[in-house]
C-alpha cells in the first residue's frame, strides 16, 4: 500500500464502521428516487443531454434483458423435421423459410433486370443557377455583372492555371476546392479516403460538369489504386466511378459510394 493511501490504510487497520453495509444498501436504494427527482427538475440543454443518455442506457438495458431471455428460451430450429404425420394446417409452417429465399431470388433478378448503369442516387434536386453562382459586380461604377463566383464545392485538376482576373468569368474559390473524397465500398462495407481524378458527370447541367462542381448525385472518378482491385484479366484497376451521396457545401466533406 503506497504511503499516501491513508484511507485504505485506515480501513485495513481499523475496519469500516459497523453500519457501513446497511448505509450502502440504503444509499443505493435511494439512488433511483434521487435520479428521478433530478430528471424531473432539469430543463433546457442539460435535460436534453440527460434524456439522451438515459434513452441510450434504457435501450442497452432492454437489449441485455432480451439477450438473457433468448438464452433461456427454447428455440425451434428451422431444419427440425417434426416426427410423425403433420396436419394440413401446419404444413405451411416449414415452408416459411423457403418462401423467404424465393423472395430474395426475385429481388436479385429484378436488380439484374434494372440494368447495368443503375446508380445509388437516381434522382436529384434541381439546383438553380443563382444558387450556385453569385454575381460579382465589376467596373468602375460596379455596373457590370458578367462575373460569377461558384459557391458550391468544386474539383479542379492539378494542371489548372487561372485566367488573368480581367477575363476570368467563373471564380472558383480556394476554400471550396476539394481533392479527396470519402468513398464507401458497398460490398466491403468499408470507407476509404481516395483522391479524386475527375468529375465525370454532374446531373444538373453539362456546364457544371465542365466547371467541376460537386453536388449531390455527381459522378466522379476516384483513384482506387490503394484498394488493390484487380480486373478479371489480372490488371490493377486504378480509376473507378463513384457517386456523391451528400451535400458537400453543407457538410464540408465529400462522401461517395463506389459504383461496382
Amino acid at each position, binding site marked *: *500500500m*503506497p*504511503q*499516501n*493511501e491513508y484511507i485504505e*490504510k485506515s480501513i485495513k487497520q481499523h475496519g469500516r464502521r459497523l453500519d457501513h453495509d446497511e448505509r450502502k444498501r440504503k444509499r443505493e436504494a435511494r439512488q433511483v428516487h434521487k435520479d428521478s427527482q433530478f430528471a424531473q427538475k432539469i430543463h433546457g*440543454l*442539460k435535460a436534453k*443531454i440527460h434524456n439522451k443518455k438515459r434513452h441510450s442506457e434504457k435501450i442497452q438495458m432492454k437489449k441485455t434483458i432480451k439477450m438473457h431471455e433468448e438464452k433461456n428460451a427454447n428455440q425451434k430450429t428451422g431444419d427440425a423435421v417434426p416426427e410423425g404425420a403433420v396436419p394440413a394446417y401446419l404444413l405451411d409452417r416449414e415452408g416459411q423459410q423457403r418462401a423467404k429465399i424465393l423472395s430474395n431470388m426475385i429481388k436479385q433478378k429484378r436488380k439484374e433486370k434494372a440494368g447495368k448503369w443503375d446508380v445509388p442516387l437516381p434522382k436529384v434536386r434541381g439546383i438553380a443557377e443563382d*444558387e450556385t453562382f*453569385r454575381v460579382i459586380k465589376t467596373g468602375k461604377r460596379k455596373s457590370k455583372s458578367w462575373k460569377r463566383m461558384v*459557391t458550391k464545392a468544386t474539383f479542379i485538376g492539378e494542371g489548372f492555371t487561372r485566367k488573368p482576373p480581367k477575363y476570368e468569368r467563373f471564380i472558383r*474559390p480556394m*476554400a*471550396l476546392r476539394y481533392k479527396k473524397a470519402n468513398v464507401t465500398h458497398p460490398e466491403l462495407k468499408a470507407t476509404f479516403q481516395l483522391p479524386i481524378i475527375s468529375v465525370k458527370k454532374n446531373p444538373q447541367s453539362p456546364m457544371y460538369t465542365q466547371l467541376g462542381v460537386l453536388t449531390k448525385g455527381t459522378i466522379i472518378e476516384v483513384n482506387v489504386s490503394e484498394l488493390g482491385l484487380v480486373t478479371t484479366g489480372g490488371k490493377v484497376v486504378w480509376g473507378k466511378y463513384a457517386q456523391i451521396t451528400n*451535400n458537400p*457545401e*453543407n*457538410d*464540408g*466533406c465529400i462522401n461517395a459510394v463506389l459504383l461496382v
Partner: protein
Amino acid sequence: MSQTLYNFKRIHPVPTSSDFVDIVLSRTQRKTPTVVHPGYSIGRIRQFYMRKVKYTQETFEEKLGLIISDFPQLDSVHPFYADLMNVLYDKDHYKLALGQINTAKNLITNVGKDYVRLLKFGDSLYRCKQLKKAAMGRMATIMKRQKDSLGYLEQVRMHLSRLPSIDTNTRTLLICGYPNVGKSSFMNKVTRADVEVQPYAFTTKSLFVGHMDYKYLRWQVLDTPGILDHELEERNTIEMQSITALAHLRAAVLFFIDLSEQCGYSIETQLSLFNSIKPLFGNRPTLLIMSKSDAKQLEDLPEETQNMIKEIENSGAAKLSRLSSYLDTGVMETRNMACELLLQYRVDTKLKGSKIKENLNKINLSMPKKRDSVQRPSFIPEAVIGKQRYDMNDPNRRILERDIEAMSGGAGEIDEDEERIIKLAKSIRTKKQILAQQSRLKNNVNRPKVTNKIRATKLTAQNFADKLANKDNLDTINNTASNLLSTSAKRKRSLSVANKGLGDELARMGTNSGAQFEQRAVSVSRSRVDAGLKNSSMLDTVMKKHAKVQRKSNLLAKRGESDRQILTKMPKHLFSGKRGNGSNDYR
C-alpha cells in the same frame, strides 16, 4: 525546510472523452449568443455561427493544452523521477498518450479553421447551421478517439499525485536490502513515517519517505521495497523502484543484511546481492548493517561467513554496523554514523566541484602579523575590577531598598527614616517627568497643534444651526445688523424667504420684528411632485403607481429617458462635405 522541486499534485483532473465533449459544448452554449433568425443579414448569421465554431475550437485547444502543459515531460524532470515514471507507467505509453493528445489538438485546430473558411461562403442560415453542426461533430469525433489516452492519463495523474514527494537534492538515507530483513522497522524507529511492518516478504511495495532531524538539519529517509538477487531484466516493477532510487539519488546507502536468516535467505545470497548491486552505489557512503542483532551476532557465525563480511569492510566498500530494532540497540548509533558519513561526503564533493571557487574567494581569514613587542592589553577600570558580582545569598552584598524594607518588617513598613524615603520618591518622580517631557517633544516635532477643547467639539452644520437658533445669540446679531442698516441708506426691499420665516418666529417670541436685515427676495423652485394633487394621500397613491410602472423596466434593465444616450454617432450633416484625396472623380 527544504523545498520540493516537483509538485505533481497540481495537475488538473483529466475528464473522460465523453465528459470532455459535454464540458466544451455546454460551455460554447453558455458563452456564445443563442438567438439567430433567418431574417438577419447573411453577414450577421455567418458571424454568429463562425463565432460558435471558433469558440468551440479554442476551448478544446485550451483544455488539451492544459493537459499537455500540466503533465511533466520525462526529458525535463530529474532522472530519478523520469526513471521512476518509466518503471511505473511505461515511458513509451506515456509519451504516446501525450503525443496523441497533441495530435488531436492540432487536428481540432485544422477542423476549426477549415469550417470557418467554409462558413464564409454559407449563403443561408440553414447551410451555416449545417456547417457548424458538421464542425462540432468532427471535433467531437476526434475527441472520442482519444478515449483511451485520456483514461490512461487520468490514471497516471491520480497515481502521480499520490507519490511521496521525494526531494532529490537534500540529505537522504536510503535503506535497501533483501525482503523482510528489517528495513521498515528501522525506518519506523528513526522517523515517524509509520510504515507497515509485517512478518512476510514484500510488505513494502513502493517507496516510502520519512523525515528526521540530525544536527539541526532536516534529513530524508527513504524506505525501498526489498530486492532479490537476479538480473536487471528479470526484476519486476516493485524491485525496479528501489533500483531507480539507488541509481539516481545522492544518498547514504544503508544495506541491510539479516544474520539470523529469519528472512528466509542465507547470508551468502544476501552478500552476493550486495556485490551485484555494488556498482550502483558508486562512491557514495555505504553502510552494511547487520540487523536483528538480538537474534544473532557476528561473532556467533562460522568462521568463513565472518570472514566474508569482514572482507567487505576491509576492501572499503562499506562500513559495518549492527542494530536491533526489537531491543532498540544500535539504532541511533547507526543513524548518526550514516549521517556523519553523508555530511562528510557532501562536503567533499562540494570541495571538489567548480562552484566552490566562487565561494572560497569570498571567505578570508586574516592572520595579522605582530607589529612590535609592545603589550596592548584591554583596559578595565580599577573600580570595575574591585566590584563584586551581586549575589542574593551573600551576607556582604550591597544593601538595596528592598533589603531595608524587608529588614523593617515587609511591604508598607516605611516609618523608619521617612524623610529619606520621601526624598527618594521625589527624585524618582522628577526623573519620570523629565523622561515624559522628552518623549512628548520627540513625538510632536512637526505637527500643527490643536487644543484639546476645540478637538472635542464637533463642527457640524447642525451645531451651527443650533447655535444660531439660540435666542441670545440671535438678539445680539440682529441688533448689530439693525444698527448697521440704520446708518446706511435705506431702501425698501422685499423680504427674503428665510427672513420671512425668521420674522414670524421672532414676532411670536415677542422680540423686535422690525429689526431684521432685509435682502432681495430669491425665487425658490417648487417641487413639482405634488403639483396638481390635492393632499398627501393622493400623492401616496400616485407614487405607488409610479413605482409599479417602473418596476418591470427596472428589472429588465431597460433604457429609460433619463439614461445618457448618443442617438447618432456621426451625424451625416456634420461630417459630410470634407473628403480626402480619394480615387473618385466627382465631389
